[in-house]
């Protein structure tokens, strides 16, 4: 053990002081309170008092040297230290060689040619696969503005005026900081999250969204996965720019697609049984679920979602049935399904998008998932993605293993810093 008596602070902004006297030499025994040295600033001379006792084992400076403030002036140790301190090895020199060259992948941003464009016009063009430098602009100096892309996007069959596609969003819990947005799976709605939301102890606001054609949201403006993503993108844009996402099945695929949208920063992804990760889906379930008319038929289909039928709340079946009785939910969803699945094949993939995601990501899979194959999903995932394989869960891990799932969501959100 050694104690260092430091070159004193002798001024608010002074970083050095001159050593004008050393009252001790190597090997001397120092008592607490002794004056061991004197240093001088441009203003005055200061005595340096020993605040501890010991034997002087090191004197980094000599009289006349300029010492650095708060660096050791006199180092004290025990007798044993004094003997051992004949020659202390210097600090290891800095490592040889250059710092590893970081490969920086620079994504080339598409130049919009000579023309100018508003940020909004660029965003809409990008979302609709329009090349903005080929669009005639009517804004200042020919800039492409909203009105120039609106018509084009509409004729390309994709959503443009995103305010019209606003999805139904509900707050599950009010809080602060970056909101956590829950996106349900095919055939479900916001209510699916109600239970788990209560088990989550995060301070953040928890929001849930109804996908197009589901719950209280309007229908999709076009068939296919992209229009669902576009609607969700527009909805998130209208609420802010930073979110954590939690998704289930189709909703998890949407969450992955959202993570690469311009203008959105997705701080973390928690994905339960994500769709879009493989090619197959239980086509019989989709067909049977959509065709079910009676509560009994619906119940039989929905039980396929879980490993243990006891885990499926009766209220969920009842709510699904009630929703169907109050409107053409099944027809709306059948239309959506036609754009997503063909028999037992998934028509969309988000693997490429997921490989680009850099934030914390957890995938939770039920090994007994009968709808989407967990082993297909769990192939060739980037090493940064955490996979949680739940032995006794099916397609609804967040209901079947609610507490664990709540914990995993919490950890994803917290780990984003």
């Amino acid at each position, binding site marked *: 053990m050694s104690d260092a008596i430091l070159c004193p602070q002798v001024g608010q902004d002074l970083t050095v002081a001159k050593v004008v006297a050393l009252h001790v030499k190597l090997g001397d025994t120092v008592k607490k309170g002794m004056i061991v040295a004197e240093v001088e600033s441009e203003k005055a001379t200061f005595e340096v008092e020993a605040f501890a006792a010991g034997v002087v084992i090191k004197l980094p400076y000599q009289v006349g040297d300029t010492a650095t403030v708060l660096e050791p002036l006199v180092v004290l140790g025990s007798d044993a230290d004094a003997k051992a301190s004949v020659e202390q090895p210097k600090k290891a020199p800095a490592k040889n060689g250059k710092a590893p060259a970081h490969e920086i992948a620079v994504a080339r941003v598409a130049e919009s040619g000579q023309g100018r464009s*508003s*940020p*909004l*016009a*660029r*965003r809409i063009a990008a979302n609709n696969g329009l090349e903005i430098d080929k669009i005639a602009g*009517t*804004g*200042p*100096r020919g800039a492409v*503005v*909203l*009105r120039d892309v609106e018509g084009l996007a509409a004729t390309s069959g994709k959503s443009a005026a995103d*305010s019209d596609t606003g999805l139904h969003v509900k707050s599950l819990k009010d809080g602060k900081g970056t909101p956590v947005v829950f996106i349900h799976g095919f055939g479900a709605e916001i209510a699916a999250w109600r239970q788990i939301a209560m088990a989550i102890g995060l301070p953040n606001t928890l929001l849930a969204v109804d996908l197009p054609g589901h719950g209280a949201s309007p229908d999709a403006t076009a068939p296919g996965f992209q229009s669902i993503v576009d609607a969700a993108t527009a909805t998130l*844009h*209208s*609420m*802010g*720019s930073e979110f954590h996402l939690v998704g289930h099945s189709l909703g998890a695929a949407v969450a992955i697609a959202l993570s690469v949208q*311009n*203008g959105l920063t997705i701080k973390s992804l928690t994905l339960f049984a994500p769709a879009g990760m493989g090619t197959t889906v239980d086509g019989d379930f989709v067909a049977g679920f959509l065709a079910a008319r009676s509560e009994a038929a619906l119940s039989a289909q929905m039980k396929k979602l879980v490993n243990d039928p006891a885990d499926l709340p009766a209220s969920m079946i009842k709510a699904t049935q009630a929703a169907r009785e109050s409107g053409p939910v099944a027809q709306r969803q059948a239309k959506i399904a036609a754009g997503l699945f063909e028999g037992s094949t998934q028509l969309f993939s988000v693997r490429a998008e997921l490989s680009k995601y850099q934030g914390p990501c957890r995938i939770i899979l039920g090994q007994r998932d009968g709808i989407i194959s967990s082993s297909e999903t769990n192939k060739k995932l980037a090493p940064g993605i955490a996979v949680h394989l739940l032995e006794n869960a099916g397609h609804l891990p967040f209901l079947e293993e609610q507490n664990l799932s709540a914990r995993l969501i919490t950890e994803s959100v917290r780990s984003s810093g």
Partner: protein
Amino acid sequence: MREIMYRDALREAIDEEMARNNQVFIIGEGIAERGGSYKVTEGLLAKYGAKRVRDTPIAEAGMIGVGVGAAIAGGRPIVEILYVDFAMLGMDMIVNQAAKFRLMTGGSGSVPFVMRTQGGTGGGVAAQHSQSLEAMFYSVPGLRVVMPSTPADAKGLLKYALRQDDPVMFLEHKHLYMTKGMVPDGEHIVEFGIGDIKREGKDVTIIAWSNMVHRALEAAAELAKQGIEAEVIDPRTLVPLDKQMILKSVAKTKRAVIVQEACRRGGVASDIASIIQAEAFYELDAPVEIVAGLDIPVPFNLVLEKASVPQKDDVIAAARRSLHLDAYALAAE
């Protein structure tokens, strides 16, 4: 609902809060017997006595400092400063004392101090009695900055100010004291940080506070005749600022015009513009427009006074520019 004047709404707020909490008291120049220059405190001396309604000498630094000290020690003072221009004499007490105390005590101390004052142009009162100085307070963390535009907001915000625990710069406008508006009956409180949509619209968002809300509303009425639906947002409190309301509106309209009576340079409008560009950049179809006072002291001559601060036509022009409706003057290019 009743239609009353802004100054009467302020008096109601003070009166009700003095009746509710006997720690609330008010000091200022000529506020007791005379009832204040704008009659806001008329009748309060008779009702609450000389202990709680006190005239002061002309000593702004002292008054403000005494108010801050009283607040630290558990009182609920209102200090009325005749003109915001005169508050500059007490800036040490506002900036170095009131604003800092909560942090300097590690959160254990608080300063429930309310400084009521007024600013803005009106009637040729010249350079030392016409300023809009909210940006000075806005840039000092620890202060709340409140700028009501209507009698209802004035009452609700002042009542809230007297119930919360941070130093409040309550900035009224000299032109508004005699204006009338509907005020709800009974208890009416407006919390800080909640903006108000003074007019709904979908084509362009106009953000304005204090007297400029009225100029923005006049402009919106004119724009409506041209088929443009402007949404007028009044943040009501600049600190805390209802960012969400602004961003939501901009996400809807894709365009923002910010109107302030204060000079352009270093203003609150610039800060709001930076928030919009940072947080709603991809919503914007046009640059954020700022309509502000000139970077010059306010002159006495009434024509020049008018020329020094934003007028209705300036707001209309900015809104139309943001909708790409008029030819562009590309000055710098």
